[in-house]
């Protein structure tokens, strides 16, 4: 897992205190993206319901949520593609509207549902988009090379597979070397090899100083890449923090999984009494102990002392998936 840069908790319920206690070095500048009290209704459906979030300069921000939670709608309002019912969105401190498209010069955007003109080649497509962004089209070949489309540069986009269109989408987002990337499901529809290209690209761009927001429902990708995550459920942000802090807050503990010959579903006596152990469960030959990392060895020693044969053991760190499931389930979502 990456080193987490930001250690303070940002919970929806105590945002104000967060703003006060945040380390000055990180929050001295205004957030790159600020969403305040965003509502978006489609007829009677509340797609986004009082969403507040902020993205800081230089971070990779993972925007997570189940399908239909309002991720794309939020992203589209940030891009001024969709009009908010109410609420304010600022990018680089400029309130967003269909009139303030100049801020798009510095944003690379990948829509969730992407398509290009079928009758153009990727070179023609990117050349057209370079012209719109005021970028020199000499970069086109390099951009295609970067996403692995170098050898299909003269084929028509209409003949491309879904994954290739998606990669071309990543390439166009990099036009003009923007300082902010907003990527809606960048790994969606890609096979493993291409997911890797995109993942490496996101890292590389971030290392070169770009701020990156991407939405996803592939939790492992988010866990691997993100500094902070925002979790959205039913149109509202239920949490916004580093993965470590989310785990702490939700009391998600690392677990120790021990395989013991002949355990037969019974938790050995006294294991849950060891200091630092939160919980112990047995299923078949598998004993799962939630405990602090420092207590693991004591648990293993205790098992040995009881004359049990330890066939195998492994430690499991809390995953984003645990946090996610906890938060979007009803009791965990309550703040």
């Amino acid at each position, binding site marked *: 897992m990456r080193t987490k840069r930001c250690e303070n908790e940002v919970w929806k319920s105590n945002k104000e205190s967060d703003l006060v206690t945040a380390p000055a070095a990180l929050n001295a500048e205004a957030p790159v993206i600020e969403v305040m009290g965003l509502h978006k209704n489609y007829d009677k459906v509340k797609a986004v319901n009082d969403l507040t979030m902020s993205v800081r300069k230089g971070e990779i921000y993972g925007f997570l949520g189940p399908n239909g939670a309002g991720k794309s709608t939020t992203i589209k309002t940030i891009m001024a593609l969709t009009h908010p019912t109410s609420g304010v969105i600022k990018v680089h401190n400029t309130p967003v509207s269909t009139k303030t*498209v100049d801020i*798009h010069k510095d944003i690379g955007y990948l829509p969730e549902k992407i398509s290009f003109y079928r009758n153009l080649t990727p070179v023609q497509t990117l050349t057209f988009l370079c012209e719109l962004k*005021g970028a020199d089209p000499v970069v086109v070949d390099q951009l295609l090379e970067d996403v692995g489309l170098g050898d299909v540069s003269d084929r028509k986009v209409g003949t491309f597979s879904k994954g290739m269109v998606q990669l071309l989408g990543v390439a166009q987002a990099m036009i003009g070397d923007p300082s902010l990337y907003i990527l809606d499901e960048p790994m969606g529809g890609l096979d493993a090899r291409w997911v890797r290209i995109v993942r490496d690209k996101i890292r590389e761009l971030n290392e070169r100083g770009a701020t990156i927001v991407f939405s996803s429902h592939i939790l492992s990708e988010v866990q691997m890449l993100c500094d902070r995550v925002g979790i959205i459920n039913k149109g509202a942000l239920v949490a916004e923090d580093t993965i470590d802090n989310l785990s702490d807050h939700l009391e998600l503990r690392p677990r120790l999984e021990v395989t013991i010959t002949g355990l037969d579903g019974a938790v050995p006596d006294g294991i849950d009494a060891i200091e630092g152990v939160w919980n112990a469960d047995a299923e078949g030959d598998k004993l799962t102990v939630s405990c602090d990392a420092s207590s693991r060895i004591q648990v293993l020693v205790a098992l040995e002392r009881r004359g049990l044969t330890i066939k195998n053991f492994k430690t499991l760190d809390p995953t984003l998936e645990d946090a996610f499931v906890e938060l979007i389930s009803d009791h965990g979502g309550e703040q």
Partner: protein
Amino acid sequence: MIEFGPVHTVLKKEVSDNIRNKWIILLTIIFAFLTLAASVLAGGGSLGGLEETVTTLMSISMILIPLISIMLGYSTISGEDEDGSLAVLLSYPIKRGEVFIGKFLGLGIVIALATAVGFGVSGIVIGLSKSATPWGSYAAFISLSVLLGLLYLSVSMCFSALFKRRVASLGAGILLFFWSTIYGTVLMGIYFATGGSMSDFTSANPTIPDWIWQSIYFSPMDMNQTASMLVFNIERAFGFAIEVPSFVDLASIIGAHLVWIIVPLIIAYLAFERRDI
């Protein structure tokens, strides 16, 4: 404010798209061929004069030009929205008004070029083979045809901005076309139902009531056809003597064309600006 740079980029793309997919060439050839065919038809086997050619040509071009314009325009916004390419385009530093104007001008140039070159080349061939060719009138006829194309382009692009889905804007385009072609029949129906009779048209001294003439401004095809008759001083069409009353003049018809072009563009812009992509 609308800036020229982004408008020009979109315009250029629309034109080069239609050059690349050979649409513009195909249309030009169709227009040129139709003009020659109309001339041979009017001349009874050999090339007829430009005035007779136009009388025959009009009945086809009045159908064809609107159809082509509707086809080029109906999906510009709704189609690209449905595909997802509009989301990419609008994530660039370009305003919605600039996208719309760029597309209108680009497609307008395609229609104008195909019409002017197609009708023009054939017209020159026909005109040179005759003496006393009314060049000015023919040039005016071409301009009116271009204007008709722009009019239907504007209205169909307005539909593309008003409707969420491509199929809905196509439906509206088809209705518009249908409306245009049956308008005359509907008018005559009303006229005959309110006491008019066919002999009012066929008699030596036809008496077409003023309100029928005044209502042609609601039907682009009819007003465009009337304008073409005015520029050639055509007084008979399809065997009927037609005398256009003085209050229906070229200036008012051209003015009506411009209203038909500008008003849908404004409506389209307002709808597009409000649209959620």
